[in-house]
């Protein structure tokens, strides 16, 4: 069974540009979560999508947005990139009714903003 896949693995952008990160959940999983992992800060919750709808959002500015497609894959968009957006962005999927009980993470997209 394929795990959560994320693309691209690495992404280099400059300040002010937009970044698009993609995630394919495990087959059958309807919930997708996005986390930001910055050095020394652990994982910070960004967004949660389920059945195509945004269900919850972390304490991030509106320039962080995303969507979930009918096939449950998801996209994270970061507009007007800032240097502090440089981080590993992790996507996770879940099947459980209570999603956070068992999250399966992808290997992440390393975003570097120059």
């Amino acid at each position, binding site marked *: 069974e394929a795990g959560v896949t994320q693309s691209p693995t690495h992404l280099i952008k400059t300040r002010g540009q937009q970044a698009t990160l993609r995630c394919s959940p495990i087959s059958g999983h309807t919930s997708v979560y996005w986390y930001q992992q910055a050095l020394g800060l652990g*994982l910070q919750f960004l967004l949660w999508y389920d059945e195509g709808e945004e269900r919850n959002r972390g304490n991030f500015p509106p320039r962080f947005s995303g969507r979930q497609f009918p096939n449950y894959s998801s996209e994270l968009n970061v507009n007007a990139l800032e240097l502090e957006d440089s981080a590993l962005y992790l996507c996770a999927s879940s099947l459980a009714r209570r999603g956070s009980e068992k999250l399966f993470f992808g290997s992440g997209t390393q975003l570097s903003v120059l």
Partner: protein
Amino acid sequence: QQQVKQSPQSLIVQKGGIPIINCAYENTAFDYFPWYQQFPGKGPALLIAIRPDVSEKKEGRFTISFNKSAKQFSLHIMDSQPGDSATYFCAADFNDYKLSFGAGTTVTVRA
């Protein structure tokens, strides 16, 4: 603002030693406390989890101790092996589908 405080930031033990990672929280509404293990270049993977109605849970060589009154929980890795070298994250949740993670502890087990 870190809702879950994790310590130490890093630790080194000899093979067979017992690394202990501690976490503390303030929000008494938290009712689910998982631990995730992350190897370099990989995403975190669920290791073990506990709910506040039990004080201890063991899975293989990994044990969670939970102290509800102190609002603290910890991970013990018994008979640690070099393959256990990884970053460990504690987390907490209260039914709103957004786990709050600690900052992580890098564990190095020397052969």
